[in-house]
């Protein structure tokens, strides 16, 4: 094979306490669409940021067209010919389409912007993508797909040779995605090197020529797309070779059909987020939401907890129809939700462990009836002990605790409410192995006590071991459900890959 246009060798990037990339090689050729795949924490975004100069690399080499490259900013990377289009389009929504393409590079005469020339150039840039748009239209009023296209037009206009598309399809519908792919193919055929990141498996096989898989900051391998089945791809991403998959069920399973149904969702969905799906959870049952990152698991949880309003279907609690349009209502109905985004949606960073722990309980009591301090202390003491939270004392600001201990405090926040159903979204993400085992143990003991759990995890083993029933999701759809002895790694993977 010809020499790569962009070649990375043994790239290493370390953050305090984490090795984000460890000896990663990556080759991007002119005239190919190259997908970079991996689950959370695999190192995809770090890799892109190293290439675009957002992060300096700690070790390794990077060559563009045989010349060593050390970009110190996205601007330097752009000047070298590497342009990036992000999921959250980095353009100015309040300005026109034409201006967004040429901002900072407008044609001028004596320092005066020549608008007619600007429009002509913008038209030309869009025409290269086969697009004809109203150039004076405000970008904000265009669809996300058009905004992506405009971003690509701008990127190409800076003489890009490498185009990085970071999850460009996350907020596009099928037609929009198809249009984007058409443009991508055309650009590829013109000799552009395209690096493509996505969570959608279908799309990878549809558009990419080669795939590089990363896992936990290390390179798993580089493959030709046609030679890698979807099943194999998932296996590589999750670190489970299909041959080595466990085809047996582990953990004890309830046959929970006879128990009372706590929550029942019928056809709940939200446009652009989750296709309508059914889901029911019974008392004392652990229901897993399986699937890869971006498959719609978190979005489903947000619908159930009243964070986003579903625009179809209905939710029943104990057989009664409820409209849960605010987390407060969900909580009042005995639900709890431990978000995967611990920093953004979980902890109140500068408040103490104690205040973080009692927050949900206090919120449900209202502002007046302050939880007596003795009770607060008792709760803290109880959960620090029960969940083995490592902290100097309950007055320590939560931001001073380790990730695992923060997670335990958030769990305690909800357990103190004694909810009837708790949604745990990737509760074990980013925490150490010991804490992971403890959380798994905790989930089982909650089940023993009759609590219902919705358990979201990317780790097959964890799902198989913990859940009584698993709803498997792929590309924002529920694609199947397994229960009891059916729950095996093999079966879940089959569903995720849609082999049946």
């Amino acid at each position: 094979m010809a020499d790569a246009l962009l070649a990375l060798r043994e790239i290493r990037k370390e953050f305090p306490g984490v090795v984000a990339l460890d000896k990663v090689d990556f080759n991007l050729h002119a005239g190919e669409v190259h997908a970079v795949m991996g689950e959370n924490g695999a190192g995809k975004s770090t890799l892109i940021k190293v290439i675009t100069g957002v992060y300096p690399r700690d070790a390794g080499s990077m060559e563009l067209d045989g010349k060593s490259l050390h970009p110190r900013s996205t601007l330097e990377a752009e000047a070298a010919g590497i342009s990036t289009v992000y999921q959250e389009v980095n353009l100015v929504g309040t300005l026109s389409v034409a201006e967004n393409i040429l901002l900072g590079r407008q044609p001028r005469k004596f320092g005066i912007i020549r608008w007619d020339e600007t429009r002509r150039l913008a038209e030309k840039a869009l025409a290269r993508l086969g697009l004809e748009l109203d150039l004076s239209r405000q970008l904000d009023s265009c669809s996300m797909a058009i905004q992506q296209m405009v971003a690509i037009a701008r990127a190409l206009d800076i003489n890009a040779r490498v185009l990085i598309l970071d999850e460009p399809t996350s907020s596009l519908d099928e037609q929009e995605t198809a249009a984007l792919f058409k443009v991508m193919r055309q650009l590829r055929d013109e000799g552009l090197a395209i690096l493509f990141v996505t969570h959608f498996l279908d799309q990878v096989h549809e558009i990419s020529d080669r795939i590089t898989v990363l896992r936990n900051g290390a390179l798993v391998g580089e493959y030709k797309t046609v030679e890698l089945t979807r099943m194999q791809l998932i296996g590589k991403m999750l670190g489970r070779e299909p041959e080595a998959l466990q085809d047996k069920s582990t953990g004890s399973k309830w046959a929970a059909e006879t128990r009372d149904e706590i929550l029942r969702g019928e056809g709940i969905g939200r446009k652009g987020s989750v296709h309508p799906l059914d889901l029911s959870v019974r008392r004392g049952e652990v229901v897993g939401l399986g699937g890869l990152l971006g498959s719609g698991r978190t979005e489903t949880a947000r619908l159930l907890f009243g964070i986003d309003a579903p625009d179809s279907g209905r939710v029943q609690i104990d057989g009664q129809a409820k409209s849960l349009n605010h987390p407060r209502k969900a909580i009042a109905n005995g639900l709890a939700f431990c978000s995967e985004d611990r920093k953004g949606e979980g902890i109140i960073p500068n408040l103490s462990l104690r205040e973080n722990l009692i927050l949900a309980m206090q919120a449900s009591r209202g502002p007046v009836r302050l939880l007596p301090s003795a009770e607060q202390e008792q709760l803290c003491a109880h959960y620090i002990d029960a969940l083995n939270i490592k902290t100097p004392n309950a007055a320590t600001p939560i931001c001073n605790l380790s990730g695992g201990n923060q997670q335990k405090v958030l769990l305690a926040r909800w357990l103190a409410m004694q909810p009837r159903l708790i949604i745990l979204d990737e509760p074990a993400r980013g925490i150490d192995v010991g804490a992971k085992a403890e959380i798994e143990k905790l989930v089982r003991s909650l089940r023993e006590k009759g609590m219902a759990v919705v358990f979201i995890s990317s780790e097959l083993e964890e799902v198989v071991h913990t859940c009584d029933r698993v709803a498997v999701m792929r590309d924002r759809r529920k694609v199947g459900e397994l229960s009891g002895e059916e729950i095996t790694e093999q079966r879940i993977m089959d569903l995720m890959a849609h082999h049946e």
Partner: protein
Amino acid sequence: MRRFIPVFATFAVLIALFATASGMYERFFTARVIANLFSDNAFLGITAIGMTFVILSGGIDLSVGAVLAFTMTFIASMITDHSWHPLVAIPTALIIGTVFGGTMGFLIQRYELPPFLVTLAGMFFARGMAFMVSSESISIEHDFYTALQDLKIVVGPKAKLKIGAVIFLAVLALAIFVAHWTPFGRNIYAIGGNESSARLMGLPVASTKMLIYALNGFCSALAGAVATLYMGSGNPAMGVGLELDAIAAVVIGGTLLTGGVGFVAGTLGGVLIFGTIQSALIFDGRLNSWWLRIAISVLLLIFILLQRQLSRFTKTSRT
């Protein structure tokens, strides 16, 4: 087209107000009243134009009234007490205003301090300095100055544009040109629309932001100079609350207070609405001046809510 709606609304309100006033009061619809709208509101207008750039960039400047007062007092004191020639005093004052604005811009940009806080401090500082120059009003007596004050362009029967109005219109034309035909102007819109994007697009965000506050300092100082020509004196207590009037004129002129959207021409509309209400109240004689405040704040509320709705609407109606 949606971004033009607020400006259309501005001029619709202006025309409606003017028509109503013309219907209610005799001799309101005359060239004289219209010309006076420009002469009487020249210094507010110049301040509002500077403020337009600041607000377009997503910032705010509360120091303009105080800078105006300082400039007035400085010019008056230099000419009357220290016998400077006006052609020395005025440019010096303009330079001081520009440097002062630039310094605030530097603090805001370099240390990421909130603009409203820095310019509040700037307001305290400039107001105090104005009183330090002179604790009371100084009238300006200088032949050259009197000659300047007497300059006027006759535009109709009994209708004259004084020098202040001419400067205002010149600044307006220049500002429209800068906002729409120079990279600096477009960068202001980009920064106000999405600062982090502007940075990623490689636009000179830091220098542009500093320049905006320097430019506004210049406009405030120029407004101060025009105000001395209008009043013939320099008063350290002038311009209290002028920053609010200027901000109101900008917002009623259709500029989004969060930045990124708006037109300098709209600000002209805002200033004229302000002036029309004021003239109508004077013509009426029965209504008191506080109605101006109330009317302005109601218009402010309406325009803020209108823009809020429009920006929500824009984002939900993508096609």
